[in-house]
């Protein structure tokens, strides 16, 4: 196992940040810790790095118990949200820092340090900036230097704390893909923390969804997205329409409408329920195709790149529905604000019981 966490607990005063959390991560994986802000994901990362002490529990990194080691003996690479580069040192010196502070006997010779730093900077495509100072670099460049610096000490595991959230959208996307490629080359067990579900879905081998200091679900992006374990995960992994109602004799109420309940809930007689529908799982047409179709009026049209977002007020529903249609369909159906449409709900997920985000 690359990283093994056993029964980690952490409280700040009254507040329980990590609640008896256990997690195993195979060597060489790239894992996303995904959750809303304040869910404990950064705390967990800092506990693994030794920057925060857990109240109880065990941390095993690459089969070595590091629970009680101080951060500098853990041999963990940590990348901070705001880079935390050493301002008064050049890019070269920043990356070489971890090697230069080694005890004299373990310290590689100067030539070797230079070679290693140059190699790493080439890897992160920053070899041209050897003698620059951090203030002369852009945010994306700084984060790449920070990554090279973390990798310089051959860390057991690499931890990234919201590494891209301080960058603008375009750079963020670029760096994301680049990090995935880099990880495929170097294969160091890595965890990155994010609150951006898109980032987690795109980048990670496995996603661990965290809420209130507990793991809600873990699995591949596909598994987590397609088979969310509970309402929280479903809601957190993308835009969604939520309808509060009841299940009654195999029928789910959707405002004044009733839909067939999914198979696993067919036998429920009476229970409160939440029905979730993703915006892209909603079909739009100008003519009624099905008895279950809802009738509605488009209230708002939003351009979202290749997709068009629609806000539709439907008869019999308390709140408007958010739908997404391909641009082509939007043009073909001559949709616009105020147009009457029929809404087909293609796929629903129903969770029973109460839940809050």
């Amino acid at each position, binding site marked *: 196992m690359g990283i093994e966490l056993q029964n980690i607990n952490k409280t700040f005063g009254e507040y329980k940040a990590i609640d008896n959390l256990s997690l195993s991560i195979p060597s060489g994986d790239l894992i996303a810790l995904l959750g809303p802000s304040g869910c404990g994901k950064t705390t967990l990362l800092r506990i693994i*790095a*030794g*920057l925060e002490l857990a109240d109880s529990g065990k941390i095993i990194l690459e089969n070595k118990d590091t629970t009680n080691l*101080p*951060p*500098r*003996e*853990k*041999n*963990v*690479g*940590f990348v*901070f949200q*705001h880079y*935390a*580069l*050493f*301002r*008064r*040192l050049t890019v070269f010196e920043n990356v070489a*820092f*971890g090697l230069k*502070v*080694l005890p004299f006997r373990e310290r590689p010779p100067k030539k070797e340090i230079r070679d290693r730093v140059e190699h790493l900077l080439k890897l992160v495509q920053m070899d041209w900036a050897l003698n620059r*100072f951090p*203030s*002369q670099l852009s945010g994306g460049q700084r984060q790449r230097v*920070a990554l090279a*610096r*973390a990798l*310089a*000490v051959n860390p057991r595991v690499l931890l990234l704390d919201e590494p891209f959230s301080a960058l603008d959208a375009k750079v963020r996307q670029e760096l994301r893909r680049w990090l995935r490629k880099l990880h495929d080359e170097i294969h160091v067990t890595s965890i990155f923390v994010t609150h951006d579900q898109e980032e987690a879905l795109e980048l990670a081998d496995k996603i661990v969804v965290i809420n209130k200091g507990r793991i809600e679900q873990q699995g591949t992006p596909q598994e987590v997205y397609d088979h969310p374990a509970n309402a929280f995960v479903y809601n957190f992994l993308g835009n969604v329409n939520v309808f509060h109602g009841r299940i009654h004799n195999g029928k789910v109420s959707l405002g004044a409408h009733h839909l067939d309940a999914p198979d696993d809930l067919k036998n429920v007689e009476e229970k409160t329920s939440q029905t979730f529908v993703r915006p892209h799982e909603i079909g739009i047409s100008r003519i009624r195709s099905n008895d279950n179709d809802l009738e509605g009026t488009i209230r708002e049209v939003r351009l979202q790149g290749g997709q068009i977002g629609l806000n539709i007020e439907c008869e019999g529903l308390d709140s408007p529905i958010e739908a997404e249609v391909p641009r082509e369909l939007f043009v073909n159906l001559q949709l616009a604000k105020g147009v009457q449409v029929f809404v087909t709900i293609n796929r629903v997920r129903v969770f029973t019981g109460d839940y809050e985000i």
Partner: protein
Amino acid sequence: MALFQRKRRNILPGFGLSMGYTVFYLSAIVIVPLSMIFFNTIPMGWEPFVHAVTAPRVLASYTLSFYTAFFAALFDAFAGLLTAWVLVRYRFPGKQFLDALVDLPFALPTAVAGICFATLYSPVGWLGQLLAPLNLQIINTPTGIIIALIFIGFPFVVRTIQPVLEEMEQEIEEAAHCLGATRWQTFTKILLPHLFPALLTGVTLAFARGIGEYGSVIFIAGNLPMKTEIAPLMIMSKLDQFDYAGASAVALVLLCISFSMLLLLNAVQEWQQKEYRS
């Protein structure tokens, strides 16, 4: 034409007014009064001037003033850094009180401080009593002067380092720890270089203040000719003897040395900053 160019480049308004005010202010408050020293000295003529400022007693007082101010500032560098560190990094009861205490040397009439020190370190004073059996004399020695100057210069160092330390993200230290640096390595390789410009400013201020300090020193120094007479005291005693020209001659030399040292330290700082900013 030139006016238009300046206007286009300066987005912040009010350059003319504020610059004009600055120049006027510096002239009225600093340059004009200080130039009186210069103009008072001129009528004296070259020979008497040289004679006045190279008298052995005067030379000894320059040396004393500069080296006591230097060592006091050096000590303040350590003590001030430590105090600023404690005030910024830790939370403890009475922190506000301690923080306010730091400024006290600013507020206290310096003569009061001088009398306090003299009483404390006199052979019958609380501390002097303890030191007397060890044959350690503080009062009437350069050590006493240094102690007084340490007191005077201390807040300068603390107050210049504090904001820089406060602004510094903890993450930078955490990053160093994660990379395997010991606390000492983190301090010497990361923290100290980061704080150095502020530290230098603080020490410069403490040093400059120390050279000019009069009130707190004369009580503890004993003012023994050739031994514990500081330069400001030389000026005062010349004034007492109505030797105005001689006093301003000594003052002029003191002023020139101090100013060139401040200039030098500012240049060092500028160079330090430029290196990693540009």
